[in-house]
Structure formats: C-alpha cells, structure tokens
C-alpha cells in the first residue's frame, strides 16, 4: 500500500491521472456512499449485466463478459477478473434520470373548485458507476432534449444534476456497437467526474470535474498512486484497439439528408413485415423520451393522480386522435422512429438522437439491425464517390494521342467493336458515359462513346454510317488511331443506389450504357430492381447479344428486347421499345432512368417514364449533336445554354426543360 504522502495528488490540476488498484475499488463505492449517494452500477441479474443499486465492489460483474448480436444477448465468462469487461446491457441510465414512471400531480374537485398539487419531490443523490462513452453522450442528448429549450423538464433536471458520474473507457466491444460511427466513443472525453480505464491490476483514473477532484483529493487519496507512463500508454492502446475493432459500421456523412430524401423507399414496407412494433427498441434506447400521462381516480371521482410513464411511438395508440391514428401502419411507425432518431432529431435538438450503443439492435426480439436498414434505405454516399473528373489528354484542336487496335469484333453487319490498348491511362480511368474524339488522318474527328473500360484501355463500338466511321470499322488488329479524351460528363449511377434503375436503349444507344451495366453488375446489391429495355431495328441489329443473355441470367438484370421488324427466326417482341414496359407492373416513384437512342425514341420513352411516375430529375438522356472539337470551343453542339460536348452529353429532363422536345433547338 502506498503512503498518503506518495498518493497525494497535485492539487493544482483537476486532470491528473492516477492508478487505482483493483483491490481498492471498493474505496470508491464507500466514498460515494459516504457522500450520501445511492450508487448505481453494473451487476448480474436474470442472465444479463444490468444497472442496479450496488453497495460494494463485490457486486460488480467480475470476470463476466457479454456477447451481443442482433436480437441476441448472452453473458460469457472471461478468463480474468475484470469488472468492466462487458459492453452495455439492457438497462440505460435514463431509468434513474428519467424514470419509467413518475407521479406528476394530484387533482381534486371540491364542488365547483378544482385543485392541482404538483408531486415534485427532492430526488435522492446518485452516483453512476460504469458509464460508457455512448452513455455519456446519451445523457448529453437527454440534456439537450429535456433541459435546454424554452420549456424544461424540472424532474429530469433535479435528478440529472444530482448524479456523480464514474465513466469507463471501453476496452471491449460487441458486434452491435457503432459509437465510432456516431462520434460518441469508445473514448470518454468530457461530461464525467471520474473516468476509469480498466487495466490488468487495476484502473487508470482520470479526473474530469471539481467534484471528481474533491473525491480524489479527499477520501480516495490513500487508495491512489500517480499513474505510470505505462499505465497511461496501456490504457490508451486498449481503447484505441477497441475503436479499431468496432471500425465504422454506419457511414453517417450526409445521413440526415439522405434519410429524409427516402420517405417513399419500398424498404419501409419490407422492414415493417419483420418489425413487431413491440417498442422494445425505443424503451431500450438511452435517448428516447416519449411519454404518456394517465389519470387514476378514486371511485368517487373526486381525487385523481396523474402519472407519466415511458411510452413508444411504435404503439398504435401513440399518435391516435378521435378519428384514428396518424401513423396507422407499422411502416409509418418504423419510419417515424428511424427518421426521428437519425434525421429530424438534428433539426429539433442540434444532435443525433442515436449514440450508437446498439441496444435497439441487441434487444430487438426479432433482430432488426438499424444499421442495415439505414444502409439499405439511405445508402451511404461514401460508397459511391463523386466520379473523379479525369483530366483528359490531347484536349485541344490540334493534338491526339495514339492507341492501337488489339481486338475487333463484328457486332452486326455494320457495327464493329474495337478494343484499344496503349492509349493514355486517362482513358481507362474515364467515367461511365464519357466519349472520345476519334481521329484518322484524312477524316474529321468524331465523338464516339466509350463502350467498355478495360485495365489498360477502352472499347469503342462504332456503326459504319459515313466515310469516317466506315474507315474506323475497317481497322484491323495492330492498326492505330488518334484519341482525345475522355470527354463529357457521365451517367449519374450514384443517383440510382438504393433505387430501381430503368435503362432504355435504342440501337447503337446501348453502347454508351454498356459501362453502366458493367459497373452495376459488379456491385449489384446496392441497387433495387434493374431493368434493361432494348430495341433494335431487326434481330440482326442487336448488339452484344451474348452479354445481354448473361446480364439477364447471371447479373440480376431483367433484360427485355424488342425489334422493329422481325424475321422468321425471331420469337421475341416486335414493336417500339416503349411498348416493352407499357404492360409492366412496376411503378416509377422510386426509379432512376437512363435513356439513350434516337432523339425521338428518347422523347417517347421519357413521356412513358414520366407517366409511370419517374420524376424528370431522375430521367437522364444522352444527346447527340454535331461535334468537332469535343471541348466546347467550336460552337457546333450548342443546345440552348449548353454545349452538349462539355456540359453533357448526359442531361436530366429537368435540366433540359422544354428544350428537349422542341424542334429546331
């Protein structure tokens, strides 16, 4: 044991660091109780580590850990005697600062008179032992909700202000933890009186408030020695390891806006099939604050008491008025909860309503994981980075870079795909829908969409319609050609994440869309239903027919084809491409559409899509115009306020407005 001389802390700092031997932990509880506090801490009860009143360190869960997955909690035994070697259990501290039931007032009716008497009582002084980073943050959220606005909850304030907080840095984590994503843990940085980090022989103790300092300087002094650099280092390393173990399970950048933009997402109905709307998540949540008030009367009806108790937005009656419930369907209530917790809470209280403790995941009896739902409903933007603008090469009137044909494929009688290699690396890094200006000496350079990106080059699919394109189609393996690019903008595939995607192509219009299909097939699960409608003039004019079959059978893409004129061999549909989805059953409210083909076909398709509920801002077309430079300098491709080469070629209908369907623009 250390002498009090040695243990005497430096009184000038409240941020000293000390070492509390495991055998002296009881001194902390004794000191807090001697201060007239009821000590609440972790203890084992009914198969879980719960928070209850504890009277000595012997009641702490020594050597007990926990294992948590969605819908499942099990205690485990550790091979050490650590008392904070678990994560968080079913109880949250709100039980003490915002109890499940409090009496509000009593009322009396005496003749014509009424009397109300508030039931306010002076709460007992409390100490919480073992408050984790996420839990401290939850108390902070409650402070903002209940004790920061114009109107405040006096009962909460009185209870909350009485609490002495012994925080604990997390050195263990469960699969349900996501404090790292929510910015609340596993470290504790403020809002505590004393913070502990559990080490092998004891605890690194940090002081966070004058009350904490008073305890350290006073009754705890003889139980402490100054922390060694190794103690400090080990504690920091253990907490950092916990952070690494948790990772970043819920990308939150832009989550508020992403989520609130998805009020019509079909996933709400899907999760409501699983959700029992039992309300466990809300009552396990350390920040959910909804309550209801009930009256109890005596048989005479003269006196009544009002009680306030925890309630949940998941109960059908919670939003009910005489005419019915405003959120009558389970999906409405799930949406209310999730959008409040992760979205509108910010608007109301300037903070997230979620602290990432994972209780709603573990204690959901049917194992619904909010993180999974959020990623499905509001896909993280970080998964779909804004396409990096590739700096084009040879982007001038006078220059080309040279590439070599390494393979050719006759797609149809007049259409050839050239595989090019040896071009500048900029080309293979190009974006979906970009084009190259392609030049052969003696012919005018032509804009050709890139129909595939390969590791070291690109493919171009060219229909031999005029002298220049016919010359290109005639190139053989080993021949060279000149390129500028990649140029133009791209199909906004990120807009389709979490939505249905409708791709409509006519004839050679499938070529600029082919990289889109490659990209989404590579990460198919991020998109809803994907449907490709493709129309060609005749069966012999169908491009990429082997790939079409493969996309349909293996890539999870519904491929529908039609031809304008059929031969005897053709067993498929005949007619214009819009007829393909005239009879389909899907609705477009959640869809994004990419359309490429002759302008008249794109107009007709856009009208049909709009009729199915796809909004103009989500219908994208790629425009064809006369281009000579590809870099917005020659003036040929002007269309209203745009240069199609520079500002396009991909435009949303909302961008184009009525210029799109207007003749002569």
């Amino acid at each position, binding site marked *: 044991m250390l002498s009090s001389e040695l243990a005497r802390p430096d009184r000038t700092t409240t941020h000293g660091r000390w070492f509390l031997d495991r055998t002296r932990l009881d001194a902390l509880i004794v000191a807090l109780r001697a201060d007239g506090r009821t000590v609440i801490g972790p203890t084992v*009860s*009914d*198969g*879980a580590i*719960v928070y209850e009143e504890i009277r000595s360190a012997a009641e702490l869960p020594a050597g007990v850990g926990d294992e948590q997955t969605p*819908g*499942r*909690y*099990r205690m485990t035994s550790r091979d050490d005697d650590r008392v904070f070697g678990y994560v968080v259990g*079913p*109880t949250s501290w709100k*039980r003490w600062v915002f109890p*499940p*039931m409090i009496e509000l007032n009593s009322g009396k009716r005496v003749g014509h008179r009424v009397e109300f008497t508030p039931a306010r009582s002076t709460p007992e002084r409390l100490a919480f032992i073992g408050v984790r980073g996420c839990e401290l943050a939850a108390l902070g959220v409650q402070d903002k909700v209940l004790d920061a606005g114009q109107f405040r909850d006096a009962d909460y304030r009185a209870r909350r202000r009485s609490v002495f907080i012994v925080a604990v840095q997390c050195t263990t984590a469960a699969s349900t933890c996501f404090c790292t994503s929510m910015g609340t843990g596993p470290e504790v940085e403020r809002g505590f009186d004393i913070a502990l980090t559990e080490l092998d022989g004891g605890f690194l103790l940090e002081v966070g408030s004058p009350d904490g300092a008073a305890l350290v300087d006073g009754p705890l002094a003889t139980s402490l020695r100054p922390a060694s650099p190794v103690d400090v280092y080990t504690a920091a390393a253990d907490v950092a390891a916990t952070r690494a173990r948790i990772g970043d399970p819920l990308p939150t950048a832009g989550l508020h806006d992403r989520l609130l933009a998805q009020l019509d997402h079909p996933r709400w109905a899907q999760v409501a*099939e*699983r*959700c*029992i*709307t*039992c*309300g*466990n998540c809300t*009552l*396990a949540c350390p920040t959910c604050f909804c309550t209801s008030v*009930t*009256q*109890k*009367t*005596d*048989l*005479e*009806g003269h006196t009544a008491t009002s009680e306030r*108790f*925890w*309630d*949940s937005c998941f*109960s*059908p*009656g919670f939003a009910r008025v005489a005419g019915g419930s405003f959120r009558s369907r*389970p999906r409405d209530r799930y949406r209310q909860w999730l959008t409040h917790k992760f979205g509108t809470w910010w608007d109301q209280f300037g903070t997230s309503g979620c602290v990432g403790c994972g209780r709603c995941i*573990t*204690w*959901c*009896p*049917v*194992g619904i994981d909010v993180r999974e739902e959020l990623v499905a409903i509001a896909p993280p933007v970080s998964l779909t980075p804004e396409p990096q603008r590739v700096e084009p090469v040879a982007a001038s009137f006078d220059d080309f870079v040279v590439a070599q044909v390494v393979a050719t494929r006759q797609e149809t009688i007049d259409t050839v795909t050239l595989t090019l290699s040896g071009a500048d690396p900029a080309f293979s890094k190009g974006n979906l829908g970009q084009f190259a200006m392609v030049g052969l000496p003696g012919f005018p350079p032509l804009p050709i969409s890139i129909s595939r990106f390969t590791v070291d080059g690109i493919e171009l699919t060219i229909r031999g319609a005029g002298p220049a394109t016919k010359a290109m189609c005639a190139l053989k393996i080993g021949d060279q050609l000149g390129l500028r690019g990649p140029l133009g903008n791209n199909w906004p595939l990120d807009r389709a994440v979490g939505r249905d995607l409708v791709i409509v192509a006519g004839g050679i219009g499938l070529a600029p869309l082919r990289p889109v299909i490659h990209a989404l097939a590579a990460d198919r699960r991020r998109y809803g239903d994907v449907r490709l409608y493709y129309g060609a003039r005749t069966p012999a004019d169908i491009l990429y027919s082997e790939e079409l079959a493969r996309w349909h059978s293996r890539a999870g893409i519904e491929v529908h084809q039609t031809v304008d004129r059929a031969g005897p061999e053709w067993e498929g549909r005949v007619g214009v491409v819009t007829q393909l989805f005239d009879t389909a059953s899907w609705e477009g409210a959640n869809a994004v559409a990419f359309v490429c083909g002759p302008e008249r076909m794109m107009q007709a398709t856009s009208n049909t899509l709009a009729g199915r509920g796809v909004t103009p801002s989500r219908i994208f077309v790629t425009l064809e115009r006369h281009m000579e430079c590809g870099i917005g300098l020659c003036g040929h491709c002007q269309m209203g306020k745009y240069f199609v080469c520079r500002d396009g070629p991909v435009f949303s209908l909302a961008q184009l407005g009525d210029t799109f369907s207007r003749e002569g623009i």
Partner: protein
Amino acid sequence: MTAATGQSVEHGHPSRGGAPRPRVAVVKLASCDGCQLTILDLEDRLLELTEHFDIVDFPEASSARNNGPYDVLFVEGSVSTPDHVRRIGELRKMTRVLVTIGACATSGGIQALRNWADHDAYRAAVYPTPEFVESLARSTAIAEHVPVDFELRGCPISPDQLVELLTALVTGRRPQLRDEAVCMECKRQGVVCVMSAGGIPCLGQVTQTGCGAICPRMGRGCYGCFGPREQANAAGLARYLGTSGERSREDVGQLFAGFTAYAEPFRSTITDLGGTRGARRAGGGGRTGGGPGPSSLGPTSFTTGGDDDGRH
C-alpha cells in the same frame, strides 16, 4: 379492446345510503370460473365497490338470482353450445354495458383448440355417450355473436384492470386499458428480455399488456393469455421464430395455440403453420380453422347442462 365506446352507467337503483347505484351482474358461459374468482379475490376492494354498485346477480358469490335488466353485465366464458348462442342474445338485450371478461369470453378460450379438430371425433374421444353432448363445432368469443362494449383480457383477468374499468364507468371517463405489447411493461419494470437474453420464445411482443408482465418477470416466455394486441404482427414473429432452425413450423404454430388461440391473428398464424398439435394427433386435420362465423355454427344434439350456466 373492442368497441371502447366510453359509455358510463346511469345510477338506477338506490343504495343503502339512498344514492342510486348501477345494477351489476356476472354470468358465465363455457369457462372455468377463474375470472369470477378474481372478482372475489378483490376482497376489501370488492366491499368498497359494493358501495357504488348494486351487485344483483353473481352466482360464484351468492345464490340470490336476479334476471335483469342490468346496467353492467360481466360475461365470463365462450360461446360453446347452441344454448349459449340463445342466452347471450337475450342477455345483450337486457344489458346497457356488456363487458366480456377473460380469455374465453374475449377469444374463445382454451376450448377453442377444438376448432382446428374434428369435433365429432373429439367428442367421441372424451365422452362415453357423445350423443348426449350438445356442443358447437367451434368455441367462439362473445364478440362474434353480440356487440361488446368493453373487454377485460387475460386468463384470468387482472383485478387492477377490473377496478379501473368499474372506476371509469362510475366516473364517466375512458378506462385506461392500454393496448400495447407486454414488452413495454417488461422494459418499464426493468425485466431482462427472456427472448433476447434467454433464447426463450415469448409472445409478449404480440400480446396485449395488462398482466404486469408476470411471466417474463418469472423468467418464462409470455404465452399470450391476454390475447393479440392491436395490429399484432404474429406472422412476423412466427417467421422469426421459425428461422433459427430450432423449431419446426408446427412447433412455432403451437406457441400461439394457447388460451387465446382463436383470436386473430393468432388464429390464422396457427392455421398457416398447419393447425394445432392436438388436432393433428387426433387425426382430425380435416379442418384448419380460419373458419365459419356464428351463422354457420350448428347445434348437434342435447345439452349437457354441465358447463353452461355456472350454477353449482
């Protein structure tokens, strides 16, 4: 809760003090009398209630008979015989506020498990002379036959809810009979979830509260004796319970096949999962519930007189 009309009762008959007291009666159909015993178990509170109510007929408590009309009538038991159908119709006509009490009256009771089985085969298996037993093929809730003003759920009912209902009736306010999951009560009480922490299947999520979460509090799963709560997602719970691989479809269905099996959506969940185990064992199987309404309930033969009128 069904048809919470929020009506109060008029004070029709004078009490000892001269103030008029509403006439209250208790009757039973097919039931075990446990809910009536719960009324008696109120003890001191029952005496206090008699200051405000004139209990005119209560066979479990007194041999004094009175045939109505009633301001408040508590009906225990399910409709199980042709005579029950007739009686409940008559009782409804002479009653202002009809309150069904207990799982039998509000859902058909444990005896409704026969609704999935071959009624004749069951009767032959149980009674030595089945031809003398007059019973309906299905045991059903009172509300399937006549309009019901209030329901008190449970097997047996909660004494607190009973007092609350009577207090509300006498003061003219809406009774506080919450329609929410048993889970809410567990969480408020700090009961550790037996399903998440114990792996015990629990119907608390789909069951109406009111019991005080008595079973989970004792470390066992709720078996739904208060019956399904509003919009109970029984199918969702059944799907989840079936996905762990620990239980067969039939095992999952059997979890719902308790005292309130015939209340929707427990009823269709059991049916979807293949009916009740008992019915399968008895080789009934011909019927899989979902069944006919009151209009198709047909008499079979004579009355037994044993379980239908509560006079012992």
